[in-house]
């Protein structure tokens, strides 16, 4: 039986179902006019086609939890705007880049992911919590300038950048938290 969420459960990253379509909440805000009742404003991204729309909810509104099945797979490769995953029987599943969002930049060959299915269709992935990436390009850390700007952009995948501490150099390997997309730690080479 589908479990319902009430508006106070809504948060960024929550997967919900609206009119039979699975969505993920990508933006969430809480608005309360004066002494009035709360309004929950959500941007919902369809896990089928990646399109988004904004919808307001009141406190007593509910949404269904989508019926999702999870299977472990490995990332294979990219074809045009599709990402190809493979299960242990070499059966292929594809996901659109706009459904993956920033997760696409954290994938690497043979990366083990959990693929979520909705009515037999692959709709989203969950990456390992931490993945490692090599810094392709970043400005050398400015020495002595520790009072401000203690972070700088670094390219990890094509032109995709994340913010890293100043002591990180080109060629370093870093750990990234895929839940937030943030730098987590430096990986020291043996």
């Amino acid at each position, binding site marked *: 039986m589908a479990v319902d969420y009430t508006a*106070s459960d809504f948060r960024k990253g929550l997967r919900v179902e609206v009119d039979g379509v699975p969505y993920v909440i990508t933006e*969430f*805000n*809480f*608005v*309360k*006019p*004066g*002494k*009035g*009742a*709360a*309004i929950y404003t959500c941007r919902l991204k369809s896990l089928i086609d990646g399109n988004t729309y904004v919808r307001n909810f009141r*406190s*007593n509104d509910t949404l269904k939890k989508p019926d999702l099945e999870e299977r472990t797979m490995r990332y294979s490769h990219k074809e045009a705007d599709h990402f190809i995953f493979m299960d242990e029987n070499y059966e292929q599943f594809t996901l659109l880049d706009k459904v993956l969002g920033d997760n696409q930049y954290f994938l690497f060959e043979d990366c083990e992911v959990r693929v979520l299915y909705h009515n037999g269709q692959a709709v989203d992935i969950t990456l390992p919590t931490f993945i490692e990436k090599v810094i392709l390009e970043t400005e050398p850390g400015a020495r002595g300038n520790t*009072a*401000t*700007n*203690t*972070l700088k952009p670094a390219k990890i995948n094509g032109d995709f950048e994340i*913010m890293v*501490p100043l002591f990180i150099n080109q060629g370093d390997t870093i750990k990234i*938290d895929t839940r*937030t997309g*943030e*730098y*987590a*730690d430096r990986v020291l080479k043996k």
Partner: protein
Amino acid sequence: MRSPHLERARLQGLQPVLQLRSRILTVIRTWFAQQGFIEVETPVRLPTPALELHIDAEPSGNAFLRTSPELHMKRLLAAGYDRIFQIGPCFRKGERGDRHNPEYTMLEWYRANADYQDIMNDTESLLRQFEIFNLKSNIPRLTVEELFLKHAGWNPVVAYDAERFEHDLVSKVEPALPRDKPVFVMDYPVSAAALSRRKPGRETVAERFELYINGVEIANAFSELTDPVEQRLRFETWARERKVLGAPVYPLDEDFLAALETGMPPSGGIALGIDRLVMVLADKTSLDNVMAFREH
């Protein structure tokens, strides 16, 4: 756990705003001292939080954290204190967003033998202390009726509908307010009176106003309701309505009602969100940018 390097960078980035925040608090305290107000402190943990239809209190053991210091400050008014203010933490359960945090800092001030017009004058005078507004002229005082007729096409004072009122306020009226200066929105339908008194001579209107700065709601003020009978009726109505909504119903604050019965002078009062004031003065769009630590 988040990288300590990212956390350090975040806190360092907040430094200019936290300095501004500190200066704002100094300016506020100096202004109140000049006006002859005394700063008071009232309990944060209460057995009977203020009963309002859409405000939920955070439980704390067998009590609750205050959602506002209002009822205790009014007990001081009833005891003869005529100019009081307080700056301190308040808590509202489940309120979290760009402009809400479950724990925040509230400034409240009250004047005895005064009404909401006097509080508007106070607010104007206080905001003049912040040069950023360049307040040469007076802050526009716009009525709810004129704003709704102009931007939403109906008059909530004549025919009130709570859901429609709140929806149009958020989606039509607030977006039409000026983005570059403060305005007062005043004279609410009596159904949205909260703890304000009815306007003498016009019973369908409540003497309540809200301060908006750059389109952001910053403060809410009343000519305070001082009638113990009507106050009890409003509490009881909200208790019934909260029960229907499935919200917790708090016991009535009988000490406050008893204080009203001894006689509270006609008073004006206001609650102003310090975090939001800092947010608009620092030209930021989220409380993330003005509070050092937020729960996530």
